């Protein structure tokens, strides 16, 4: 009896050490993969077919963060392991943490299932916005944070989330909400990002439509792609915040997109995944030599070169400004965030047109600032 308090303590300790399962026991079972969805560019997801069910797997692709998530869907109820829990194949209600998720669902003509969304106000696409409003889609992120109460009230079949915070998923699971990580933003090329439509195709039972759309865009994009990069046409990116100028990584999606148009990034040594912090004055100095200046920013409609120089007179000395080679994407007036992801070939066309490599094109996202 004198050991009982110690025993009790170890009982509590071992109970505290029990690893809570994220999904269900199926993930630990050894099952034979019968088939997979062919993923050519994307690194952050896999779709594996097993006997009677399939697994959607989303995972981190870089060393600087780690996450993994699995979702099981039945393909044949008679063959599927009955001890596992599956997501319904007939999804009636999906909540989304990002407008990019909406872009994929819109491509598959599945906007009707979207019952909740974070940041309704950031949907620039008028048709999509109207449709969501008409459907009564609920804003679930008042004040930029996901409202658990709003989510519980909505009780969606699935909540598509970003892996920004590790505690988020635990909170949703505890509330009885099935969630799944969508991390398409970590991909480093436009085609890889678009390829996530294949995952959405599986999820929404529209595999053929998703594959067909992807293949169509891929073919067009590869036909437009310029190679090799022209080292004589360099570009810098973005605008400073006060004294700091964040330059995207040389392996970021936006840099790869512009390099696909044949331009060369001025900072090819910039980190693999992270933005590099430069001082404003260092970039001012480099801008004397960079041929193009790519800006993606929220500005009033009709924003002009004169407005840009009025923001900072030093810009007048930039080579890109002097040679009228500032390529601008106004995120306040274009659908860059909501549908740009779905149309990388259009963005590439815009860049080729702005750099004089394509004729007869009406820019949608990127245009030369006048």
């Amino acid at each position, binding site marked *: 009896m004198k050991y009982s308090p110690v025993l009790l303590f170890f009982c509590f300790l071992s109970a505290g050490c029990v690893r809570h399962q994220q999904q269900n026991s199926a993930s630990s079972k050894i099952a034979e993969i019968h088939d997979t969805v062919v993923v050519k560019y994307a690194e952050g997801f896999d779709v594996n077919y097993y006997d009677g069910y399939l697994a959607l797997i989303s995972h981190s692709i870089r060393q600087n963060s780690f996450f993994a998530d699995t979702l099981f869907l039945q393909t044949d109820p008679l063959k599927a392991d009955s001890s596992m829990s599956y997501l319904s194949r007939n999804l009636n209600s999906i909540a989304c943490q990002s407008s990019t998720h909406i872009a994929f669902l819109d491509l598959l003509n599945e906007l009707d299932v979207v019952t909740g969304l974070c940041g309704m106000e950031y949907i620039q696409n008028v048709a999509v916005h109207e449709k969501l409003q008409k459907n009564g889609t609920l804003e679930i992120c008042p004040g930029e944070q996901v409202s658990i109460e709003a989510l519980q009230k909505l009780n969606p079949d699935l909540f598509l989330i970003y892996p920004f915070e590790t505690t988020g998923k635990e909170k949703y699971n505890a509330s009885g909400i099935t969630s799944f990580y969508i991390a398409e933003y970590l991909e480093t090329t436009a085609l890889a990002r678009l390829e996530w439509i294949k995952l959405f195709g599986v999820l929404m039972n529209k595999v053929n439509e998703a594959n067909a759309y992807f293949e169509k865009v891929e073919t067009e994009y590869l036909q437009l792609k310029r190679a090799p990069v022209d080292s004589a046409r360099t570009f810098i990116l973005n605008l400073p915040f*006060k004294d700091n100028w964040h330059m995207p990584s040389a392996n970021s999606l936006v840099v790869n997109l512009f390099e696909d148009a044949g331009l060369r990034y001025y900072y090819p040594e910039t980190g693999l995944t992270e933005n590099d912090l430069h001082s*404003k004055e260092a970039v*001012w*100095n480099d801008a*004397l030599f960079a041929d193009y200046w790519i800006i993606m920013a929220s500005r009033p409609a009709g924003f002009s070169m004169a407005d840009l120089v009025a923001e900072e007179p030093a810009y007048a*000395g930039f080579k890109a400004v002097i040679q009228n080679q500032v390529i601008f994407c106004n995120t306040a007036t274009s659908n860059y965030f909501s549908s740009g992801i779905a149309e990388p070939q259009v963005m590439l066309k815009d860049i080729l047109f702005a750099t004089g490599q394509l004729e007869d094109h009406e820019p949608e996202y990127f245009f030369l600032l006048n």
Partner: protein
Amino acid sequence: MKIKADILLLLAGLLLITLLFGLNLLIGDVHIPWSDITTLLSGGEVEQKTWSYIVESRLNRSVAAVFSGAALAVAGIILQVYFRNPLAGPGVLGITSGASLGVAFVILGGAGAASIAGGIGIIAAGIIGAMAVLALLMFVSRFVHNPVTLLVLGLMFGYFTSAIINVLFLWANLDDTREYVLWGLGSFEGISTENLIVLVSVIGLFLLMAVFLIKPLNALVLGSEYASSLGVNLKTTKLLVISITGVLAAVVTVYCGPISFIGVAVPQLVRILWTSKNHTVQIPAVIILGAILALLSDITVRLSGNSLPLNTVTALIGAPVIIYTIIKLNKRLA
């Protein structure tokens, strides 16, 4: 001998300002030779086109640091004498928060600093906010005589205005919120030459006005009744204190953000370093030391690759001084 030492210290301070000013022009990610800097400052031209903008930017931030540091330090010493509290200052008493609230109304209301209406509106709103809090504090001080209670009330005003700002965030869009948050970190960077002229003119004028407070401040050190018996007009003094400290704190807050600690810490350092208790010496001393601390803080920010916010650096310098003051005050009261 003591006066000589004080004057020598003032001259040494002026020399240090000159050195730090020169250093702030010289250092940076882009190496610009001193000869090119002097050429540009004297109106000449150099081969690299953007260097003129870089030197102008470094010059503007250095001038802004000198004047803002001086302004906050003068506001601090005036408030400390008036409220007879060594921990008083524009930040502690909620005056900076009042200015921040005014700025928040304009920025979070959608009129960004970039627009002309926004620019003028921010200045006006900042000054109104700062002076409103100060006037409220003075009104309350008629009924509350305990200086510690008054300080606590100032802190409460600060919390209250911060709460209102947080409520304003609910209606603001992401860009406006980001602009306000960045402004709140404090910085001497990014002030255009036109805005710098306004900042320097207003601060210069009100620093000159502070000279008129030297005699009342010397008398107020011994208490308001004693000051009154010496012929100090308390109503006029109160008006001058409100106007000078309110405008000085507001103008700095509007252009550089709510900069903490300089207003409280510099007068304490002056009392440690300078022997004379006469404000004829102490006012120039806080101007010089305020400018030095602000320049040092800006140089530290720049040497950190701009990764340290200005308010972090001023806190690192100012907080130990304030802790020392509290310990000293505690010993005196014990």
